[in-house]
């Protein structure tokens, strides 16, 4: 069993490094550097484009490419009789500008929104008809990728999952626990995305940090021989904290302003992406656990309690940082 301890220590050191270091630039998926560009149709085929939110690098430096039959010189764009149909892309997306939302407001019909991100630098603008297969594929590609990015950059979510694996160990219990976490965050993600529940983002983030601290405490309890709540009912804990984390996922999705009719599908694909990323992480951790057992790499006795305290410290560090933001707003 001490082999696992050692491995956990190593894993933890990794996740901690990730967690502490990744915050400023990598958590940008949560607080995206966004731009919003609106195209309003003034007569059939002719649009007026306007940045309603300018990207941080400045609107003039965005390299926007529109379908070849369209003539673009902001604020005007003329697409002729064919209308605005075809690929729109931004070639110079990077760390300064990760997401640009393009809103198209036609004379007739509902306004539509398209998201261009580094994950998905090209979007196809569609006609006003019913969504075709191509639309669905495009949507799937965009949102599965976005979900994967989101979980891979969410150091707090990954740290929580690591804590769960730590307490539960492997096997069936882990499968059940991770499933419970998944169900929890899917449910609240859906609820938040459809506007059934609304939680302000900053206090929520503080709560997420607190949930990780809770897991840290549970690990210490377990090491002292006490049977904590998580060890006894891992799925209940995983489910309830999953609810909290899910609302956090939703806030990432909310900023992208989706067309109402496509929202359920986008939500589904985003969730699939999150699960793919989470599963990859869990499998990697399990593979490393296996490798450490195999190599019989054990932790010295003095170091046993260290990981839990590290988890706790990092999460409390986050908690206070996020708490400070809550009050800065109020």
């Amino acid at each position, binding site marked *: 069993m001490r082999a696992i301890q050692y491995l956990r220590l*190593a894993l933890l050191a*990794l996740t901690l*490094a*990730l967690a502490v*270091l*990744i915050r400023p*630039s*990598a958590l*940008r998926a949560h607080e995206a550097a966004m731009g919003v560009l609106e195209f309003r149709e003034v007569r059939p085929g002719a649009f007026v484009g306007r940045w309603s939110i300018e990207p941080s690098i400045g609107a003039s430096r965005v390299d926007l490419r529109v379908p070849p039959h369209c003539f673009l010189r902001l604020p005007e764009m003329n697409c002729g009789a064919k209308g605005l149909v075809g690929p729109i892309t931004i070639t110079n*997306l*990077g*760390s300064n500008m990760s997401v640009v939302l393009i809103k198209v407001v036609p004379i007739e019909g509902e306004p539509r929104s398209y998201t261009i991100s*580094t*994950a998905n630098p090209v979007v196809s603008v569609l006609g006003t008809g019913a969504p075709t297969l191509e639309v669905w594929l495009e949507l799937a590609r965009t949102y599965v990728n976005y979900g994967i*990015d989101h979980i*891979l*950059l969410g150091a707090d979510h990954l740290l929580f999952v690591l804590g769960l694996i730590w307490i539960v160990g*492997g096997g069936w219990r882990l499968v059940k626990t991770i499933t419970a976490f998944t169900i929890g965050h899917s449910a609240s993600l859906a609820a938040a995305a459809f506007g059934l529940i609304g939680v302000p983002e900053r206090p929520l983030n503080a709560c997420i940090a607190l949930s990780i601290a809770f897991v840290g405490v549970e690990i210490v309890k377990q090491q002292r021989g006490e049977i904590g709540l998580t060890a006894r009912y891992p799925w209940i804990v995983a489910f309830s904290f999953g609810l909290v984390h899910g609302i956090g996922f939703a806030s990432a999705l909310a900023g992208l302003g989706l067309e109402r009719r496509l929202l359920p599908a986008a939500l589904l694909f985003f969730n699939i992406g999150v699960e793919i990323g989470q599963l990859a992480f869990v*499998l*990697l951790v*399990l*593979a*490393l656990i*296996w*490798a*450490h057992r*195999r*190599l*019989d*790499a054990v932790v010295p006795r003095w170091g046993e309690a260290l990981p839990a305290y590290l988890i706790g410290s990092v999460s409390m560090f986050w908690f206070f940082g996020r708490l400070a933001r809550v009050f800065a707003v109020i």
Partner: protein
Amino acid sequence: MKLNSARLLIATAMLLAGGSAAEAHIVAARLGDFYMGVVHPLTDLQDVVLWTATGVLAGTLGAAKGRWLIAVFPLGLLFGLLLGQVFGAASTQLADAAMMLAIGLLLAAAAQVPTVLLCAMAFAVAVIRGAANGADLAPETDRLLFAAGLTCVGYAAITLTMALTAVFKRTSSDSATSWRAIAVRALGGWIAAIGLMMASLALAT
């Protein structure tokens, strides 16, 4: 346990398949500099060959010797990255080739390398590769994140390679001429040959 090994194999295959085709700089634009540090060595043939060679050598020597590398290798990468930043980049091709040749020969000879020597060699490989990985960083790259990513992937790759090799070779219970032992030694011979070819090409140009 069986299930875990299967998972591990799949994971490793995915890791290799995914890495080789990926472009590290695109990953950076998308997922940030931490993941750039993770993917960068996986897209570099020098790293793939040398890391595999080091991991396999340590794995064949058994868990007692190999497990030191779990710490030594990532630390070496970090140190190499630091050295590269301080002293500027130099071409590592000849050093890479020499390390390939040395490790390959040790593997082919099925030599019982002492722990200290093993650690020293792994550290040397890590320092060389760490410096090489840091050589072509763009100025806007976050060095700290890149270093963290590189260290993490170094740890994971070396640990998994050692464990897989240890499982494959089944350590001491096998005789020196079982097909598994021969396969590992042949791999060593091939790696040494690659190192030799590379050294001569580096010298010739």
